[in-house]
């Protein structure tokens, strides 16, 4: 069975103008990214701001057409889909955004917000759409009375549930959630994480969960992809990746997560440096200026994303497959 979603050498290069009359630059927001997501699978996409995670999500949804590479949906090449083909595709792929307040029209009632995708796609009549929006409110754990409220009358956590209900209105196969809990408080964040976990099981959703917070990804996803400056540097099953991160960048990310336990205070020093700009990426492996394992070849040649152990793809000259077999 083909993967539900597969991207091949997907690139998104944005031209940016420097100073007036100055040279034009190109931001390599996505650079030849390969990723496949099976039906029913939840993949977490992590990395620092500027790593390209949001661009990957939006390019898969074709919110911007890619500048290179192909996108496959159920094995069919949909990269050049336009018109009704693209509309049909969009019914099956939906997005939940980071900030629910800016993702909804504040002048609309919650019932209208949830029904909007149904209206846009001409599904049902007024009566059946009302019925459907009530079912969706129930599905995301909100009382039916919310349908007549406006966004400012509900809390951030409740509005994020509305955003989730809207994304599910068209019964999509594939949902991209872009930092859906980043703007929420701790106790509310837990509610939304649990809701997404429940919905996945109940509806058999396929999920791409974009987050800078690996601990949330850890709850929701089976597989994790790590991005750095437009490239995927490591992909692997969650448990193995957490137990033994292979790419030095993944190691740095994991070690930087603060632990809610005063006895686990980190005494080792924090990861080095900051993510450089995607306009002036370092040569060779883009991570080499920050990398504790950097070797001469790292500055000249980008390491290919290679299978280093079962299910584990890593783009690093310093990680050899042999080494790994010894460990297992």
């Amino acid at each position, binding site marked *: 069975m083909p993967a539900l979603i597969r991207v091949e050498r997907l690139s998104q290069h944005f031209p940016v103008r420097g100073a007036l009359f100055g040279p034009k630059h190109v931001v390599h927001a996505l650079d030849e990214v390969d990723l496949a997501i099976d039906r029913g699978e939840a993949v977490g996409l992590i990395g620092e701001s500027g790593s390209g995670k949001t661009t990957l999500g939006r390019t898969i949804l074709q919110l911007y057409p890619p500048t290179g590479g192909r996108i496959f949906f159920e094995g069919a090449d949909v990269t050049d889909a336009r018109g009704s083909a693209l509309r049909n595709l969009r019914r099956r792929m939906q997005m939940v955004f980071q900030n629910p307040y800016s993702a909804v029209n504040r002048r609309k009632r919650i019932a209208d917000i949830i029904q909007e995708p149904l209206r846009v796609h001409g599904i049902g009549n007024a009566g059946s759409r009302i019925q459907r929006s009530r079912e969706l409110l129930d599905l995301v754990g909100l009382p039916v009375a919310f349908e007549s409220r406006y966004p400012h009358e509900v809390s951030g956590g409740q509005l994020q549930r509305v955003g989730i209900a809207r994304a599910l209105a068209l019964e999509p196969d594939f949902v991209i959630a872009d930092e859906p809990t980043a703007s929420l408080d701790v106790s509310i964040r837990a509610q939304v994480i649990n809701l997404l976990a429940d919905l996945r099981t109940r509806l058999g959703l396929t999920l791409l969960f974009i987050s800078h917070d690996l601990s949330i990804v850890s709850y929701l996803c089976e597989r994790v992809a790590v991005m750095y400056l437009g490239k995927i540097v490591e992909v692997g099953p969650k448990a193995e990746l957490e137990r033994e991160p292979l790419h030095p960048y993944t190691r740095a990310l994991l070690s930087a997560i603060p*632990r809610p336990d005063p006895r686990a205070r980190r005494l080792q020093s924090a990861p080095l440096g900051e993510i450089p700009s995607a306009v002036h990426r370092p040569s060779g492996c883009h991570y080499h200026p920050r990398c504790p394992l950097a070797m001469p070849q790292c500055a000249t040649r980008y390491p290919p994303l290679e299978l280093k152990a079962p299910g584990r793809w890593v783009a690093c000259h310093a990680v050899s497959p042999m080494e790994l077999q010894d460990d297992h």
Partner: protein
Amino acid sequence: MLNGTDRSALLDVRGLTTRFATPGALIHAVEDVSFNLSPGEAVGLVGESGSGKSTVLRSLLGLVKPPGRVVSGEVLFRGRDLRTLPADELRRIRGGQISLIFQDPVNAFNPSLTIGEQLRRILRLHRAEAPVGGFDREIERMLARVGVDASGKLNGYAFNFSQGQLQRIMIAAACLSGSPSLLLADEPTTSLDVTIEAQVLQLLRDLRQELGLALILVTHNLALVAELCDRVLVMYAGRLVEDGDVYSVFDSPKHPYTQQLLRSVPRFPASARRVEAISGSVPDLTAPAAGCAFAPRCERYLGAICDSLVPALAPAGSAAQRAACHLYTCQR
């Protein structure tokens, strides 16, 4: 040490109450908050949005803006009440002996002035005489200490620096321009990536040790408190509900809110398929409850007493821990 007047306290806050009079409603943002801080001690002030934690911080320094007003309470810093100090004296203490760093380093700087000019202004305010070698040399030295290579960059503007660099520059301005004994930090790493956050935490830890700084860290992130603080103050709906040393509170939280909050923090690696959530949402601060504000969400709800009487902060379990919960007042 936790109760009564403590002469050795650096900061002693008593009965702090701050309200915002908005058209149509009075918001009870901070209600009767009391705590103290020893020299060099690091305290984490945690709570969710609307808990009043940031308002406490601003109230301490007289930075609450209308329609907000500190209604009552004392803020004793080295024995003097900051609330009754003349404005110019308070201004000297602010930034001099008590420094403040904010959440958003980008907006904390003036976008139309060079970073060098802004730091020179701050330095002139706090140094009676020009430092040896001149202001710019001193600024470069300060920035080098926080890990920002400023050679040739002092003429740059805020947008020429990354967020992480700006946060370091703000920390340099706060900690190194005057001679502070207390640093107030309001969500200092919330807008930063986790790797940069780890670097900033390391920097704060080092500077605290070097300068003997006391710290009040306002955050919603319990993990940061675990990383950096000696003591935890937990706020809920404008009130302090728990106060204890960091090990006691994380090992054995006493207030049901703290207990439920700690269980709702995602662990890494995930220990289960689900995170325990606190049901319901934060209460309305315009109509404070007659009893405990957490009662409607509380899993240890005792009945009428919780709805009718605000519990006082009282010793709970150990000498090092206090909680505002009838579970502990009833037992006595």
